[in-house]
Every structure is written in structure tokens, then in C-alpha cells.
């Protein structure tokens, strides 16, 4: 990568940077021709005309001159849980973060193709980012509660929506914390700092905080990668609980997790969507050689 390019994306999340650097290495190691693989994708699986809340058509995301993801075409079903798996640097986070345009924080990026949320073009000039991000909530890889009290963390989103009354806020906070299965643990010290919570609790708090903006979609970027198995199990239970009410897109490195929680699974490699199908079908009977290699642990 030219030095200039590196400088341009210096503010980028470390994770993404690593992804970009790893991309080519993975390509070499896996010994598969991704371009070939992508060519013979049976794309009928990718498109679910009815019930689709997120529609992506030939969506390409550029970091400067470099592509993050390339020509992604897939639909995500409303109310379902969709897992995105793939080796590091395959662009799954990039795709996820494009959905609510959080990638805008990184300078010198642009996109091609179409990405729609609820029939609205995300990258249209007229998009109201505040509305978009309130509709599409996000949970990050590392728990990142604000350095505020638990109450204020959850109320933050509600206040953004313009809720000012104390009684309303109290109600929202309680409901969100209940939905995030955290209420019983924290109800007695809501005004304690959120940073005093354990990692798993923090992550559930982040989910509760996201719920407070009443989103339709929740994006989860490896939400359990910093948690122990017990906390992971709790989050997975929570995902199961939230399914139906919310559309959940989850990026994960853990294939068992993807198999456990998701209805559909997409396999990304080197910035391309290789395979996208019902989860049990993809794991038991992958159509692509690359997918099979990956899920059987031959690379990645």
C-alpha cells in the first residue's frame, strides 16, 4: 500500500487497518481464486424480494483507492438474525459499518452501488444520518459505554430522540435494561458509573443503550469477542430474545456462534460475498469450495 494511502486512513479503526493489511495475505494462503469463486455465485439465494429490510446491490466501499468490500449483493430479512462470517480482512465489518454509515468517521472513503435500509438509499445525499442511525443501532466489538452513569448511558439515546421528561426517561431506561436482561443486576445502582460494570454487563448495557433509540435494525460487530463464554452465552440468549422484534446483523469470528444464533449466514472473503444461505444449509452443505475450506478450518 502506498505510504500516502496509509497516511490517509491513519484515523481508521485498528481493526479495519489490520483487515486491509491481512487481505492479500489471506488470499495467498488460502490458495483459492476469489475472483473465480465470486463469478459463479448462484445469486438467487442472495435476494429475498419480500420481507427484505436491507437491500444491497453491487455495493462497493472504497478506502481511498482500495476497496473494502466489492460488489456485494444481498438482502437481509426483516426480523431475522443474519450472521456474517469470514477471515480477518474480508470486509465483513466494513459492510456492517456501511449500513449505518458509521464508516463516515473515516476520512477519504466513498461508495458505489446501492445500499438500502427500509427502501431508503443509505448513501443518498438526502439521507438524514440521525434518523438512519437511530433506525440502525450498533453494538461494537469492545464494550464502549460512555463514562457516565448507567442511567445516563441508556437515557442518552432517548434524549437524542427529544425525550426530556424524567418519568418518560425512567420508563425507557427500565424497559431497555429489561429488554437487555440487565435490569435485575443494576436496578439498585442505576446512577453508578457504567465503567464499574463487568465486560459482559457493559456489552449488554451497550445493547440497552442501542435499544433506547427504538431501532429497527441492530448491527453487532463481533459483540462477544471480548467476553468470556458465560457472558457470551448471555448475549446469545439476548439475541435470541430480541429476534423478531429487531432485525439483527451480527459479524462473528466464531462459527459455532453463527450456527447457534443466526437464521442466515453470509460468508465473505477478500471483500466479496462468496456464499449467502440459510445457516443450517451453509454449514452442512456449502456450495462453494472456499466456504467449505473456511468452515472446516482449512484456512482462516
Amino acid at each position, binding site marked *: 500500500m502506498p505510504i500516502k494511502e496509509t497516511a490517509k486512513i491513519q484515523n481508521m479503526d485498528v481493526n479495519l487497518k489490520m483487515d486491509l493489511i491481512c487481505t492479500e495475505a489471506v488470499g495467498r494462503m488460502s490458495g483459492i481464486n476469489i475472483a473465480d469463486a465470486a463469478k459463479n455465485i448462484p445469486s438467487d439465494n442472495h435476494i429475498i424480494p419480500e420481507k427484505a429490510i436491507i437491500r444491497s446491490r453491487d455495493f462497493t466501499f472504497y478506502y481511498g483507492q482500495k476497496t473494502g468490500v466489492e460488489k456485494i449483493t444481498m438482502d437481509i430479512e426483516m426480523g431475522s438474525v443474519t450472521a456474517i462470517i469470514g477471515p480477518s480482512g474480508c470486509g465483513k465489518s466494513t459492510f456492517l459499518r456501511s449500513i449505518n454509515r*458509521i464508516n463516515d*468517521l473515516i476520512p477519504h472513503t466513498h461508495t458505489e452501488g446501492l445500499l438500502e435500509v427500509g427502501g431508503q438509499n443509505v448513501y443518498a445525499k438526502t439521507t438524514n444520518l*440521525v434518523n438512519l442511525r*437511530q433506525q440502525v443501532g450498533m453494538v*461494537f466489538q469492545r464494550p*464502549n459505554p460512555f463514562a457516565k452513569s448507567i442511567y445516563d448511558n441508556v437515557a*442518552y439515546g432517548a434524549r437524542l430522540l427529544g425525550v426530556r421528561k424524567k418519568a418518560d426517561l425512567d420508563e425507557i431506561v427500565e424497559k431497555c435494561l429489561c429488554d437487555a436482561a440487565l435490569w435485575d443486576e443494576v436496578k439498585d445502582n442505576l446512577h453508578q*458509573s457504567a465503567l464499574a460494570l463487568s465486560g459482559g454487563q457493559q456489552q449488554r448495557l451497550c445493547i440497552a443503550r442501542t435499544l433506547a433509540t427504538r431501532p429497527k435494525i441492530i448491527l453487532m460487530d463481533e459483540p462477544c469477542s471480548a467476553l468470556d463464554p458465560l457472558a457470551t452465552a448471555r448475549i446469545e440468549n439476548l439475541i435470541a430474545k430480541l429476534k423478531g422484534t429487531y432485525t439483527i446483523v451480527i459479524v462473528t469470528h466464531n462459527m459455532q456462534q453463527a450456527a447457534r444464533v443466526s437464521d442466515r449466514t453470509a460468508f465473505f472473503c477478500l471483500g466479496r460475498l462468496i456464499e449467502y444461505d440459510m445457516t443450517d444449509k451453509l454449514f452442512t452443505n456449502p456450495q462453494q469450495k472456499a466456504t467449505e475450506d473456511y468452515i472446516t478450518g482449512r484456512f482462516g
Partner: protein
Amino acid sequence: MRTGMRPVFDCVFTLLSAASVAFLIAALGIFLIPLCGKGMKAVVFRGTVEFRKMQSDRFNRRNEATLQNEILQTQQVRDEIYALVDHFSRGLDTQTLADQAKDLYRKYGDELRSRDLSRQQFADLRAAAKDIRDHLLAAFDSTDKAVVEEHLDAIEGLRHQPGFEKTPVETMFRLADDFREMIQKVDLSRREEYAEELAAVNKELFALFGPRPGQQRVLAMESYGATRWDVAQKHLRYLIWQEKWVPSPDGQTLQKVLIRRDDPEKGSFAKTELAPLFGLIEKNLAAALNPRLTFYWQYFIDDSTPGHYFGGVGPELLGTLMLTLLAMCFAVPLGIISAAYLVEYAGDNLAVRMIRICINTLAGVPSIVYGLFGLAFFVHYITKQPCILSASLTLALLVLPVIIRAAEEAIRAVPQSYREAAVGLGAGKFRTFATVTLPAAGPGILTGIILSVSRAAGETAPILFAGAVALGPVPNFTGKWWFQPTRALSYGCYDITVGDKLAAMVPHNQFGMVMTLIILVVCLNITAILIRMRLSKKLRGG
């Protein structure tokens, strides 16, 4: 071989770093402890009765009964001293004597006129009195003992003439007698020298005991004697010892020597009536001043007389506080907004990089440059006169680069995930900054503010031309207070240091100001550190 050296390097490095820290602490100790020790003398010292008089008059702090009692007691001792001096100076001060003689003659003339006398008698008496007067004047005027005695003898011859009983002429005779007595003891040829030395003695006496009862003084600093025992000791030294130029042993040059004024060999007042004075004062100084250990905590709130001769540093302290806090009011919001712009909004282009370089350069510009800029810009164009506003604007300008840099670093250090979280919830850029990034950067920004508060409080050069004065009104908050000049600790300290001999008499004030400044800065810092601790505790989740 190589790995063998590593522990040695480790050891050397540890030792060096420990040594440098120890050196720093030692230097701080060596510097601060004597400084504060000397400064403490402004607060804790042996105060004399003059000090209590001053407190009573100027600040209304008194215990009337004890004070009056004390004044009476010390006055007794002083009267003894004054009597000695007066007696000696009466003979010496021929001008006063001559005036007295003339006055007496005039009075006598008036008396004669009111008496029922024949014209001839009146003329005779008056002529005789005039004769006596002229002889007296001539005697006073002369420095030759023989001539003086001749004149005095002539007066003696007139003494028994009738008609002078119980008139002012009798007093004239007494003057003559006194003078005769005096010339026996005093070398008349040295009268000029005596007068000069006596003036010096009187000056020091004045410095010790203040004006005599009934004597009125206009200047505040002349209203009291030595208020502090250490100052009194200094004046005592000036009183007893004189500087004389004597030929050096090689006979070529003169050299300065210190000798006692009552030294039997060389002292100016050797073998005169005044010689016992010095022993007397030396012995009775404590009784005349009644020094007592005083804890003068009001030092920090009291106004002082011009030249800081008496009183405290209240206005200076208040002025410094006002200047510093006002400067912070300008610099902190501006600094944070600039830093926020540089980090969050400005991209990374040539102009922004130039701005960063400029800020870094400004942080290192000598403060006198800011002072001159303050004069040339704020004073000339904005306030039109040196005042608090222009001074604090100049100070704000001085600390702005420091604050911008600290705030920039602090804001940059806030994890990107905080911003992502806020943005992910739908917050806009400004809202993210105001509600998430800024609070998280708070402790770091406060560190920068702490550094700049200390700097702003201690700087002299920027306020030198922009609004600090040595003598000024006590800061108050009525009317347009920001258009007044103000006193400040740093400037006052500078003023005493570059001052004249009078300023050399108040080193305790100089050090007292430095100590006050240090205490002020430490207090401001502790406040800021406490706030920072609270903030970061909240951030960490305590």
C-alpha cells in the same frame, strides 16, 4: 557478552533517572524552603508597639487599654532618649538658637511698649537688649572659641543692668549660659560635622520611633517607626555605626570604614554629651519598642502604604487572582474550541499544519514579547489605557497555546469508540463532542489549565505594560472595574527588587509576596487537581 551488559545498563539507567528525580526534588527544596522561610517572616515576626499603633490607626484592630498603657511605657523610655538628643542639639543648632534670640528680642520690645516708660528709658533698655541679641547672634555665628567667649563675656557684663528681671531677656541670658556650657564640651570647629551627623542620627531615630508625640506627618510611611524588631535592629545599626572615609595605611587612597559614632577615638560624637546616647538606645531599644511575637495573618488581606513600608499584600493578592481568573475565562473556552476544531473539524491539509506549527511556536515565545504586544495592541487599540482587561487579555494570549496543545492532545486521546458509540446512536458531530468527547477529555484539558494558571499567575512581563502598577487603587468590583489598573504579586515583587534603598528595608515584603504567590499557585493547583481527581474518578467509575 552483550546480554551480560544488559543488567548493567538497566542499573545505570535506573540510577540516572532516580538521581535526576532526586536532584529535582533537592533543588526544589533548596529553592523553596529558604524562600518560604523568609516569606514567613512577613507573617510571623516580632512586632513592636509601632506595629500595634499602625494596626490600631489604619485597620482599627486594637485593645485600647493595653495599647495606651504600652504607648505610655515606651514613651517614658523614649523621652529619656529624646531629652539627651534635644539637649545636645540645642547647643548645636545655632540657627534655631539665633531664631530664638531674635524672637525673644521682639517679645521684649512688645513688652516694653506696653509698659509705662519714658522715651529715654525705652530707648536705653531696647538698645541694651539689642546689644545682648547682637552679641548672642555673633556668638552663635562664630566657630572660634575665643570670639564666642568674648561675646558671651560682653553679655555677662550687661546682665546686672536693672530692668531685665522677669522679662524675655532673662531667657536670653540663660541661652548664653547654656551656650557657654556647651562650648566647653564641644569642639566648635566641628560644628558642621556634628550637625550633619546629628541629622543622620535624628533620621534613624525617626525611623525607629516614628514621629514624636504632637508631630504631624503627611506621608503614610512617615507615620510610624519601626514596626518590626528586625527592621528596628537594622535602623539601630545605622544609628550606631557610621561610615567614615579614612586614609588607608599607604596614605594614597581613602577607604571606607565602619566605626561607632561614640567611639572614643574616631567616633563623631566622641567625648560629647551625645556619646552616652548610643549605649542608652542599645540598652533600652527593646523597652522603647516592646517587641512581641506577632502572627500577622492579616498580611494576606491588608492594604499597604506606598512602597510596601507597612501593611500587607491584600490588593496584590486580589489583583493577581482577578488577572489570572479573568485570563482563564478568556483562554479556556477559546483554547478548547480551537482544539476541538483542530482535532474534530479541521482536516489534515497544509493550512492546518501551518496553524499547528504557529501554535507550537507561540507556546515558546518569550513573555516580554507578549507584554509588548499587549501594550501595542490591547492597550492602544482596545482599552486605551493600561487596565485589568488589557492585562488579562495579554495573559490569556500567553497561555492560549499551552491550553490549545493540552486540549488537543486530550481530545485526540479520547478513544474513537466513544465517538462511534455516540454517532452510532444518532448524535451529531457537535453533540458527540459536547456530551461525550469533551467530558472524557476533561482531565487532560484540566492538566493543561493547571499548568497555564500557574504560568499566568506568576508572569510579570506580560502585565508590565498592560495594566500592573506598583501603586494603585485596591481592586474593587464597582463600576467598570476592568478599566482600572491593578497591583499584582509578581509585579510588586519586581518593583521592590528594582526599588531604591527604601525598598531594601522591606525584604520581608518581597519574600512575603513570593511566598503568597507560591501559596496562591499551589492553592489554585490543588483546587484544579481535586476537580480533576473527581472527574477522572467519575470517568473510571469509582
